[in-house]
C-alpha cells in the first residue's frame, strides 16, 4: 500500500491563526481570590466547558484513523525502508557498484561486494543495509548517481527478522514486478525534476 499526499503549501505558520492569549494578573490577596472564584462561577465557565465537549460528542466528527485498516498519507519525500531499482528498458540493476552510498553513509551501515563479470561489467554481488544502525538520513539516495538506491514508502518494519528488509534480494525490484510496470520512480532526494528533459541543452559542437 502506498499513499502519497500532494503538499501544495508547506508554509504552515504563515497562514495559521496563532495569537497571544491575554492572561490576567494572578490575584494576590484572599479577597481577590474570592472575587475571582465568584466571578468565574457566575460566568459559568464550567458550563461552557461542559457544552463544548457535549457539542463535539453530538457532532460526532471523529478523527480517529483506525490504523491497520486505514492509513494516513505519507509525504512523497518520506524516507522509509530502502529499495534498489532496475532499469526500465533492460531490466538490469541500476546500481553500478560505484560505492558512493557505502562511502557517504554516516552510520556505516551499507555493505557491498562487487566483481567484474564476464561482460566486463561491474556486478554487485552483495548489497545489504543494517537497518538497526541506519538513521534514514537519505544520504545514500541523495548521492547515488544512478537513482538506484532510493527510499521506499514502506514504514511498517514489523517482521520476524530484521534481516528481512535489508538484503539485496528484498530491496531489489523483482523482475516480474518490473515487467508488470510496478516499479515506481522515486520522487524524493536526487530524483529528476519533472520536465527536466526540456531544460537539457545540447552541447554546441563548436566546443
Amino acid at each position, binding site marked *: 500500500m502506498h499513499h502519497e499526499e500532494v503538499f501544495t503549501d508547506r508554509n504552515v505558520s504563515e497562514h495559521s491563526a496563532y495569537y497571544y492569549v491575554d492572561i490576567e494578573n494572578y490575584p494576590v490577596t484572599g479577597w481577590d481570590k474570592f472575587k475571582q472564584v465568584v466571578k468565574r462561577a457566575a460566568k459559568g465557565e464550567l458550563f461552557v466547558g461542559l457544552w*463544548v465537549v457535549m457539542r463535539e460528542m453530538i457532532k460526532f466528527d471523529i478523527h480517529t484513523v*483506525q490504523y491497520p485498516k486505514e492509513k494516513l498519507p505519507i509525504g512523497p519525500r518520506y524516507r522509509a525502508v530502502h529499495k534498489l531499482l532496475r532499469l526500465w528498458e533492460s531490466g538490469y540493476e541500476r546500481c553500478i557498484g560505484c560505492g558512493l552510498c557505502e562511502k557517504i553513509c554516516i552510520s556505516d551501515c551499507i555493505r557491498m561486494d562487487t566483481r567484474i563479470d564476464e561482460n566486463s561489467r561491474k556486478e554487485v554481488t552483495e548489497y545489504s543495509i543494517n537497518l538497526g544502525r541506519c538513521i534514514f538520513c537519505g544520504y545514500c539516495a541523495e548521492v547515488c548517481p544512478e537513482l538506484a538506491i532510493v527510499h521506499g514508502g514502506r514504514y511498517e518494519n514489523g517482521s520476524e527478522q530484521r534481516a528481512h528488509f535489508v538484503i539485496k534480494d528484498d530491496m531489489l525490484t523483482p523482475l516480474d514486478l518490473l515487467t508488470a510496470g510496478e516499479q515506481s520512480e522515486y520522487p524524493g532526494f536526487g530524483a529528476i525534476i519533472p520536465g527536466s528533459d526540456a531544460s537539457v541543452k545540447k552541447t554546441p559542437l563548436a566546443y
Partner: protein
Amino acid sequence: MDVAFIIETIAKIVVILLIFSALAGLGTYFERKVLAFMQRRLGPMHVGPFGLLQVAADGIKLFTKEDIIPQNVVKPIFKIAPVITAATAFMASAAIPFWPQFTVMGYTVHPIVADINVGILYVLGVMAIGLYGPLLGGMASANKWSLISAARSAAIFISYEVITGLALLAPLMMVGSLSLVDINNYQAGGITNWIVWSQPVAFVLFWIAAFAETGRTPFHLVANDHEIIDGFGTEYSGMRWGLFFIGEYANMFFISFVIAIVFLGGFGDGTFAGAFQLILKVAFFFFFFLWTRAAWPDVRPDQLMWLCWKVLMPIAVLNVVVTGIVMMF
C-alpha cells in the same frame, strides 16, 4: 429469623454483587467511549462489535495477571487495602433501595438488602470507610507517590465529609427520617415534591461532595496521573488493582443512587414508571461523572480544601440554619 428470609437476603446480595460488578466493568467501557466521543476519538473498537468485549478482555487480563507484592511493602496491609475499597463500596449498597418493591408470583420482593432506620447514615459511613483503601494502600506501598496520595486522601476525606454531612442535614430535617425508603416516600407525590426544589443548595453541595467522595475528575487528586502517577495504585497490579477499580466504579453508581433518591424523588410512587425514572436519573448522574472528566481540569489539593472549608462549609451551615428557621415558622 426464618429460613426464607435468610435465603432471600443471600439471593439479593448475590444479585447486587453480580449486577454491580458487571456494571462496574461496563462503566469503564462507557467511560472510555464517552470520553473518546467527546475528544473526537472512537475509543475501543477492536475487541468485539464496537469494542464491547473490551471489558471481558480487561477482566481476563486483570484476573490472570501476576499478583506482584513489591519489596519493602507492609504486606498484610498492602494486601487488604484493595479489599477494603471494594468491600465497603458493596456494603454501602445494603441500605440503598434500588427499585420499588414488586410482586413476583405472589411473593413481595423488597429490592433492598436491609431497610435499616439509619439508612443514609449507614451508607455514608460505610462509603467513608472506603477511603481507608487508598489511605492504607498508599501508606503501605513504600512508594513516594503512593504516600503523597495517601496524605491527599486523608486531607480530602476530612474536607468533603463535613460538606456531605451538613448538606444532607437540611433535607433530613425536613423528612425526619434517616431511612432511604422514608426519604423516597416523602417525595412520592411527584416531581413537585422533590427535595431538590426545596433544598437546591443542599443538592448542589452534596453533588460536589460526591465528586470528592468518589474521587472523580475535578477532585481526582488521590490518583492524579500527571502528578503522582496512579497514586495509591502505583504499586498494585492484577486483581488487587482491579478491586480498587471495581470499588471506585461501584461507588460512582451507589452515590448516583443516593443523590437520585435523596434529592430527585427516587423511584417516586413505586410504579414501574417511577422505577424506570430512577434508572434514568442514576444514568444521568453517572454520565455526568464522565462528562466532567472530559471537560474540567483538576484542582489542586489546597484548592479543594480551600473550597470545602472556606466556601462550601459556610454555605452548608447557612443552609441548615435557614432551613431550621423556615421549619420553625
